[in-house]
């Protein structure tokens, strides 16, 4: 199937979504995604940041679609023409979504552990406005501990439902979901139970904002002062292929290996989710075999000036 996105034509398989087709092209034409996570079936369609304009539905039916569509959940049709960067409507729609996402966001980036690697920060930088028009009091929740290693700051949450899908798909006993509805909707565990299983830590990796943070790393360091290194270990539960975030010889935190879209990489045909033991307990360098520096492609703050290979993507942003 042929699909044209921002005047670039590409051949993709039937059933591919517009977003995945754009990711195949890569670069500027890729719409941002806050809730879609290709490794977690069932995610997507919620945040509305990936809205695109369909200027022609297909060769068979070339009528344009009346509304902007969510590119992460709309499959391509043969001869479809999609406008992302080149559409004024998309730009407007996306800034609208960013404004909505930010009205109740605390904007506490100076004290947020996610700062520097936050998708909402990037999105706000690209599409946000300078001033807020929201005069009301922001919706607030108390931060709670879900389990002894994970902190939930509901104030920062954008309700992308990614962690809900992690809880549904990676872990055995589901004790975690969304309560209430509308503005009052919140991520929570059933009666503040602990999320207690071996892969719960992946909720932190999939969270696009600072709502779920690693309690073993909180307030230890800003991420951009740390040196990301690829490392591996023998682990019975997971693939053991991780990124160590180091300062000198000290390991500050351990995360999964994320690609340029913030998604955990696929290694040997399997999504390389890591277990809680690797993430929270192995902070000793002797337990790891460091294989080389990690190139962080997406977040300019982290990748800036660290290694030669990582300079190119950040230049793009400046331009």
């Amino acid at each position, binding site marked *: 199937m042929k699909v044209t996105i921002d005047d670039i034509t590409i051949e993709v398989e039937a059933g591919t979504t517009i977003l995945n087709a754009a990711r195949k092209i890569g670069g500027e034409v890729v719409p941002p995604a806050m809730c879609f996570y290709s490794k977690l079936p069932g995610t997507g369609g919620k945040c509305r940041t990936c809205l695109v304009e369909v200027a022609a539905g297909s060769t068979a039916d070339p009528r344009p679609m009346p509304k902007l569509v969510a590119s992460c959940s709309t499959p391509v049709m043969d001869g479809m023409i999609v406008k992302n960067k080149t559409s004024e409507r998309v730009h407007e729609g996306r800034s609208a979504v960013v404004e*909505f996402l930010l009205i109740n966001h605390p904007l506490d980036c100076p004290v947020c552990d996610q700062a520097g690697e936050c998708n909402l920060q990037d999105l706000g930088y690209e599409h946000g406005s300078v001033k807020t028009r929201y005069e009301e009091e922001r919706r607030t929740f108390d931060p709670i501990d879900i389990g002894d290693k994970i902190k939930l700051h509901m104030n920062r949450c954008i309700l992308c439902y990614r962690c809900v899908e992690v809880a549904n798909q990676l872990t055995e006993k589901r004790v975690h979901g969304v309560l209430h509805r509308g503005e009052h909707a919140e991520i929570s565990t059933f009666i503040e139970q602990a999320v207690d299983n071996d892969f719960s830590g992946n909720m932190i990796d999939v969270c696009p904002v600072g709502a779920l943070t690693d309690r073993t790393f909180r307030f230890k360091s800003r991420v951009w002062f740390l040196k990301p290194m690829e490392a591996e270990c023998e682990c019975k539960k997971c693939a053991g292929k991780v990124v160590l975030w180091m300062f000198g010889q000290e390991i500050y935190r351990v995360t999964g290996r994320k690609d340029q879209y913030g998604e955990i990489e696929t290694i040997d045909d399997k999504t390389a989710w890591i277990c809680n033991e690797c993430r929270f307990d192995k902070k000793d360098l002797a337990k790891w075999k460091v294989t080389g520096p990690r190139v962080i492609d997406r977040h300019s703050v982290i990748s800036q000036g660290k290694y030669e290979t990582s300079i190119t993507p950040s230049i793009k942003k400046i331009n």
Partner: protein
Amino acid sequence: MKNRKLLLENVHIPGIETFDVYRKNGGYRSVEKALNTMTPDEVVEEVKKSGLRGRGGAGFPTGMKWSFLAKPEGVPRYLVCNADESEPGTFKDRYLMEKIPHLLIEGMITSSYALGANTSYIYIRGEFMYILHILEKAIAEAYDKGFLGKNILGKGYDLDLFVVPGGGAYICGEETALLESLEGKRGNPRIKPPFPAVKGLWGCPTVVNNVESLAAVVPIVNDGGDSYAAIGIGRSTGTKLISACGNLVKPGVYEIEMGLSVEEFIYGDDYCKGIANNKKLKACVPGGSSVPILPHYLVTKTASGEDRLMSYESLADGGFVSGSMLGSGGFIVFDEDQCIVRNTWNFTRFYAHESCGQCSPCREGTGWMEKVLHRLENGHGNIRDIDLLAEINKKIEGNTICPLGDAAAWPVAAAIRHFRDEFEWHVTNKDEAITRNYGLSKEPLIA
């Protein structure tokens, strides 16, 4: 001309809620006719011919919806009746189910036969628990008399019918949220495509229809699609239940023929008998809280000066600039003493409360609008808030997963469009606005 009634004709007969009385008055004839003399495709064809349009609000042709149903081999199909009627101002389905429950059951049997469904569900709003009991009693009677269950009328067709109560969320009236809720999950609308006709309940092809649409299948099968299509005007065929409320002399549920003039409906002796307490008409919401509000000078006449009729087309005449929608038939009338700002706030408060919270524009936007409107109504508003509201609803509209975002945005947009002077008056005369109402809006001078 005497107004013809198709659905509520027998509603006044005592005991019509029981099987025997209903049967004596011609009940279950459509099931006999369909099973004995028609193939399922012929029933679908009759419904197509009738021009029946979905009575839940969107007005999509029912026959067309049925023909979209995927029919893969070996996969069950389902018919689901949407009885989650919770739109402010709409109470027609409740009346129908309460007074004449067998009509819905009969319509569901005939429709299930047409669609080849062997299991069907009535998803009813949780607050209607007493109606659930009425329906369950009626269903038990139908099982007893051989109209439900195995081998109906000896024709080898099996059907099981269940009533399932919801938990009381407006959003579960959206068809995919309804299916999620029916499956026992949180009632969040699904991302479309795939549509329910392909992948609905438990991943199987499903048709979701409103109570009134399914009830209308009964007269269509009995008398033929053509005779149903002969009633009404243009593409709005048949009769429609209208639930009239607000400042009327005689509010209530009326069955009208499509094409009745709005003036006749509000002021006619057979209908609402005019505005209560000899007041003047100020505004009207003709199709449930989600449709645009009309100011008094656009209620009985369209912008081009023609008579406004009770039909899908006529009420929508003028688009969103000077028209509205027939919607679900929740006809709300305001007299000169009502405050449009307060009413808009009230509607928005409802949508903010009922938004499922799944997609960002609706979750954040409805709450934001509610707060701004609350401020305006209570004398803390600012003149720029009015433009802000207009901006917010433009940003919600069309950017959401399901139509709830649009439904929340349209009434606000229309209220500002037609009653801007009243909004401004609320800002400029803060103290006065709390103690008295603005009165009638000024009619724009038409050149």
